[in-house]
């Protein structure tokens, strides 16, 4: 029998080392995972709260909203309303996992398996992360961002910087490129670029230019609307990008701040699209590793039971009429689907052969799963791999709530032969960020006239923007644009449902 990794609940740093080595052995040999180098950091509860308030990142620029979140989390943590996560993992290379010091040895094993191998593999291999994030550069970039913001505060005043960041944060969810095509972000280069730009400005600065008389204004160009929109890259759904490039009166440092916020939003974009898959992968991996370690006798029965208890808590899915229900639990759904795929690959039934001819009975569980983890996101993953058996097991059903419908909420489909595909399509859609976020685009700018910026919101299923919030966000947008901004909500037939027009606040009034 192999030696136990630990006895009881206590651990020290040698234990962690042994645990990590054991997990790594299973992860690479049995599961064939491919991970970034690991860095494991042990932290206290207070540090965990710190990490919470800066979206889990180890370093971040200073802003009041993080303080707000910290105060909020701290209050609810102190009152016992909220437990803290056992771990936080950062998509970087090396991959940093934070472990709470309070965890028992079993819990540390669980979270190392979960974060340092499960999440880590997913970060390194999933196409979205490969496409949109730069794991090598992120920490340096955050460091650069932090210092840059600090410098700006020194040079231009805290109020000014805060105002720009407030506005940028409000637009953060619409500061994302959703379609690839541009070159991959290289965050290290970003950092250098900003430095060079500033240096260049300083080198070529010549006060004489100020005294050169302005020439006659150029004749009004009579370019066509199409040409103009093309020049501005319109329509543009990345509002922060558009402002950074085209807002007429922003200072260079403000553009750089917008760029920082935009890059950070982009960095988190894959995470919001892969919650189910990411957690599902990590949960499946920790389950496999823990089971294996137990089989090898490296974890005692008692500790394994402790693990099973935490594990079942994590993958618990309350039913819709349960007090505790708050939507699908990504851990539960992800883990159930991964296990279901394992079943389909190894012990398929006729139904599975019919629904999943490509993988049913292929017998190479890890091969199939690794391929899935690499090439799907939540929406496509569910659309492709949610099996009838699992839908029956979770007793899924689809509700359609039309406010116009007097009779009530209609049950549109249930887990039966007629409903499988519809339920699956609808659940996949629920996990499609492109569908959840409001679809807002910059349509046009009246460059030769009053420079009004025109945005369209393409309303889906009659769901319009929340009015108070929309007005506030538009106010921020107008402040950055410094001219009027109009947002028009149109439905699928181009019928105008509502129009907002917001004028920028005069600078003094904002400050």
């Amino acid at each position, binding site marked *: 029998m192999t030696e136990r990794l630990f006895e009881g609940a206590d651990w020290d740093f040698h234990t962690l080392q042994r645990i990590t080595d054991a997990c790594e052995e299973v992860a690479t040999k049995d599961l064939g995972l491919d991970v970034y180098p690991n860095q494991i950091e042990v932290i206290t509860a207070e540090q965990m709260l710190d990490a919470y308030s800066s979206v889990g990142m180890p370093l971040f620029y200073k802003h009041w909203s993080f303080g707000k979140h910290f105060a909020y989390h701290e209050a609810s943590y102190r009152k016992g309303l909220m437990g803290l996560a056992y771990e936080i993992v950062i998509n970087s290379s090396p991959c940093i996992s934070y472990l709470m010091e309070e965890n028992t040895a079993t819990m540390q094993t669980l979270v190392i398996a979960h974060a340092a191998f499960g999440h880590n593999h997913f970060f390194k291999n999933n196409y979205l992360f490969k496409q949109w994030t730069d794991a090598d550069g992120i920490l340096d970039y955050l460091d650069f961002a932090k210092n840059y913001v600090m410098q700006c505060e020194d040079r231009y005043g805290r109020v000014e910087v805060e105002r720009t960041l407030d506005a940028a944060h409000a637009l953060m969810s619409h500061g994302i490129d959703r379609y690839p095509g541009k070159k991959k972000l290289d965050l290290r280069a970003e950092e250098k670029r900003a430095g060079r730009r500033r240096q260049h400005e300083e080198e070529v600065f010549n006060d004489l230019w100020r005294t050169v008389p302005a020439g006659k204004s150029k004749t009004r160009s009579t370019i066509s609307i199409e040409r103009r929109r093309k020049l501005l890259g319109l329509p543009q759904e990345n509002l922060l990008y558009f402002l950074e490039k085209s807002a007429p009166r922003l200072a260079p440092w403000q553009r750089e701040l917008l760029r920082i916020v935009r890059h950070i939003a982009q960095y988190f974009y894959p995470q919001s699209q892969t919650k189910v898959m990411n957690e599902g992968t990590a949960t499946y991996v920790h389950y496999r590793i823990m089971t294996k370690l137990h089989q090898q006798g490296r974890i005692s029965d008692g500790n394994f039971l402790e693990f099973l208890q935490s594990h079942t808590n994590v993958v618990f899915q309350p039913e819709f009429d349960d007090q505790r229900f708050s939507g699908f639990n990504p851990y539960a759904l992800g883990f159930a689907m991964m296990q279901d795929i394992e079943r389909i690959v190894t012990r398929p039934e006729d139904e599975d052969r019919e629904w999943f001819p490509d993988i049913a009975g292929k017998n190479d569980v890890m091969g199939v799963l690794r391929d899935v983890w690499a090439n799907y996101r939540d929406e496509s993953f569910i659309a492709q791999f949610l099996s009838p058996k699992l839908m029956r097991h979770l007793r899924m*059903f689809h509700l359609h709530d039309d406010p116009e419908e007097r009779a009530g909420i209609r*049950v549109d489909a249930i887990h039966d032969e007629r409903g499988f595909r519809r339920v699956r399509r609808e659940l996949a859609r629920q996990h499609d960020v492109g569908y959840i976020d409001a679809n807002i685009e910059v349509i046009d700018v009246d460059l030769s006239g009053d420079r009004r910026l025109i945005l369209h919101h393409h309303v889906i299923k009659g769901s319009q923007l929340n009015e108070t919030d929309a007005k506030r966000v538009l106010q921020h947008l107008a402040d950055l644009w410094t001219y009027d901004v109009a947002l028009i909500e149109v439905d699928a037939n181009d019928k105008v449902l509502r129009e907002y027009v917001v004028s920028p606040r005069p600078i003094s009034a904002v400050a």
Partner: protein
Amino acid sequence: MPIHIIDRRLNPGGKSLENRQRFLRRAKSLVQGAVKKTSQERDIKDVLEGGEVTIPLDGMHEPRFRRDGGTRDMVLPGNKKFIEGDYLQRSGQGSAKDSGPGEGDSEDAFRFVLSRDEFVDLFLDDLELPDLAKRKIAHTESEGIQRAGYTTSGSPSNISVSRTVRRAMARRIALKRPSKEEIEELESAIAACADEDERLVLLAQLEKLKAKTKRIPFIDPLDIRYRRFETVPKPVAQAVMFCLMDVSGSMSEHMKDLAKRFYMLLYVFLKRRYKHVDIVFIRHTDRAEEVDEQTFFYGPASGGTLVSSALQAMHEIVRERFSPSDWNIYAAQASDGDNSYSDGELTGMLLTDKILPVCQFFAYLEVGESGGSAFDLSDSSLWTLYERLRNSGAPLSMRKVSERSEIFPVFHDLFQRRETSQEKSAP
């Protein structure tokens, strides 16, 4: 693959402090309102505790483009009896409501915990204290200096000669620096020596010893030690604070609130100076009684007004429980200024003969209605009386107050008195 395991637990905490301060600064007016409200509800003694405050989330809202309304589709787990085409009744917030975590939008109030210092700071801010005074109240602590061993650096005046010399001696012995006697001995031996060869040997020896003496200094900078001092909080005494208040019907809620704030401030102030502070509440109409804080501020009472009764009660309590030699006695009286005319004589006598001699500080606060310009009216009977006493040299602080911001100036006298009395007690 190498794995790095790092212990971050010892890293300095408070990484979020800066962000928190920014948040508080931004939410200042909201938090201040909350602190004001909380402090009104609190007992005087609790004013120094930090605590949870609630502010409306509205002012700190971070807007996003959000959608709501429209037709909604949702897939849910746990179907028990529905089949396709069924209709569910909408029951207000139906059980099938998808309550997505909408970034805390559902909460209209934001609760969080303020530390004790943050709370006191905001509380004092609300009273519009000048910064200097605020620092005094909030942070001054009388400190004494005491010896605390030796250090290798310091100012020349603090050099410890004995310690330095002792170390020098130890070093000289350890390094075998030749002593003066040794050299003298050798010199006399050379003088007495007749044999030329032996003299040369002795001379060489002397040379060596002298060189060594030069190499090893008598006192090396390494030897120097300075006396180290550290500041320690001075042993603190105890104080008792008497709160006297007229509770007859003419005192409105606003007046009582002003008085309460005044007492709170005095308490905060005393708490910083004395380890132990007792509070005695004496309320009076035409009779005085010692009561607890709840009754003091909120208990119903009615009757005429005899200030002397309160002073008499205070005098008795002092005699019984608070010997002036053991206790620093502070008294603060709040009243709307009414007193029956026949009582004036007795009040004045009690105050000058019995009360003031034992008090460190006696403050009289005449409270008026908010917005009412207390200065237009003719002076009240009590004010007239106290003013007369003060003019004849009695150490009284007195102030008319109708707004919270006017409370502080009363303390102005207090600070000045503190300084002079400290000077007096210094020798």
